[in-house]
């Protein structure tokens, strides 16, 4: 039984995603901000992180969190799926490819735009080898 951590400031998104994941035998833990991020991830040790981008404290807090996770030796292997209402066409200036010269590289394993259909979410999680 894999553990998935949802980091999102929207309680409704956490609840609806949790319903889908728990019904599919995943253990879900959640967090509504990016404070004490590393400590909490280390203590929960999830198999996957679902990460939002825009938080009330910072419009790009999700990007910063992803970079922070990727730079931390103990947790950098945990896959990250970005789950956000803003999509890649919103001039966010980030890219998933390391060689993209015009955008900042985002060290994440995938991007899902909200709202997400349950089967799309489950398929994406499965594609990362999480079951």
């Amino acid at each position, binding site marked *: 039984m894999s553990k998935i951590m949802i980091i999102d400031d929207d309680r409704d998104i956490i609840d*609806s995603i949790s319903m*889908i994941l728990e*019904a599919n035998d995943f253990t879900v833990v959640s967090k509504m901000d990016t404070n004490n991020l590393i400590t909490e991830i280390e203590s929960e040790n999830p198999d996957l992180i679902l990460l939002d981008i*825009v938080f009330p404290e910072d*419009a790009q807090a999700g990007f910063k969190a992803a970079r922070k996770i990727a730079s931390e030796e103990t947790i950098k292997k945990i896959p990250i799926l970005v789950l956000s*209402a*803003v999509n890649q066409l919103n001039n966010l200036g980030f890219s998933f490819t390391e060689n993209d010269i*015009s955008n900042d590289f985002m060290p994440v394993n995938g991007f899902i735009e909200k*709202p997400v259909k*349950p089967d799309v979410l489950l398929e994406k999680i499965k594609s990362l080898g999480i079951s």
Partner: protein
Amino acid sequence: MIVLSNRLIKNFSERLSKKSSDNIIYCIQDVHVKELVKRLNWSVKIRWYYIAISTFLIALSYLIIDQEIEKQTINLNFQYLLIANVFLFCCNLIYQYQLRDSSEQCLGTFDLRYYLLWQIVADYLALTLVIYALGSIETPIILMIIPNTILATLFFMPRQSLLIALSGLVVVISPLVLEYFQLIPMISIFNNTFKTLIFSNPYILFGYVFILFSCVIFCWYLLCSITSRLIKNELELERSYQDMIKLDEEKSHATLRSTHELKAPLAAIKNYVYTMNEGYAGEINDNVLKIINRIGKRCDYLLNNVTDIIKLGNLKSYVVLDVRSDKDNANQEHAQFYPINIEDYINDFIIKNKNLTYEKNITVTIKNEVSNECTDSDKFIMANDENLQLIFNNLFSNAINYSHANGIIDIILKDYENIFCVSIVDQGIGIEETQLNKVFEEHYRTNNAAQFYEGGTGLGLSIVKICSQILGANINIKSVFNEGTSVTICFKAGENSYE
């Protein structure tokens, strides 16, 4: 180098506005240092041309002037001319070597002021020797002081450049004065006839020197005012550019925030709809499920509308920027174009988006009608993924949304010399001819379209139109009511196609 540019920038910035921030000065500084190095390279190049041409002329004169005639009429002092050229040649070699060292990576490794001053002094010395060899006043060669005056005004502050120009003038007329007072031997290329006449009357000599001084002062004043104005404009332009970048960044942040604030609640509602619809929230009776699906559809409409309005707003601001500023730079800065093989792009696009056709069981066929003469390089267009995605996402989803179930969509690729066209042809509900010219208007939807597909926002084709405008592509729409619609977008082909 940095010292000089600091002085230049600070001086002019202070004159312009006391509110100039350090950041702006710092940015402008880089621009100026690069500009100064460019000008230096230019002066070295000019000097090489001078050396080459004068050496050629000296050699030519030496060969063609008959020795007998020379003795009677023209008396050229080749040795002085050659010494001056060799001296300039050696100096220019040193300049070139130093400039190569001052590549952009190591600007500031030597002081530009002393370097320049040394160049100007060396030029004056060589020029003085040439002037003396050519009989001081007998030829207009003394006017060669003007290029050096130009050089000084380009690089130094007005007072410094005036001082340099006047000192130079004193140096180059010194042979004339020394000859007049017989402190050095008099050299004449025309057997003293012209020179004796001028030396016989001190007023003529004084008048000549006065005119020369006036010419130099006039050139200095003219160039100083032009250079000052140019630098002032450059500073204002740079400041406006910095402001524009700052505003653009602020706009991007605001767009991100507003997109999130508008979309996030709708996304949460829609996520609940998905959760309930698929039974994750327990059993729901059919009537409630119908209502939930209606909520979901209204949510989709709102989400699409919000997304399209924000996208359209973003795209419009690019177009405004393009009109106001230099078109090439504006587009490259904002849209970041790069060569894209349009044929491969369309093939990939259809593969990636084929799942959209499953719900209505629509068949998509690609008809490649590209001629054999069309090489791989002819298939490249200058574009970016963002605009192409917006164009083809909208055109393809329109074709699907307004097609009947089990319909057919043809994607036709064609080339016409330097033009590459992509047509998306559906056999859907079509558009009446009278309404065809309005379909690119914002929020415009035909009654027929609104009844056939509820989720449309009426913004898709407006977005397509603006994206085509940004990419420099032409768009054409043809339709027969109840038979289908064909939208063709034509790009200028070739890697340097963007104008």
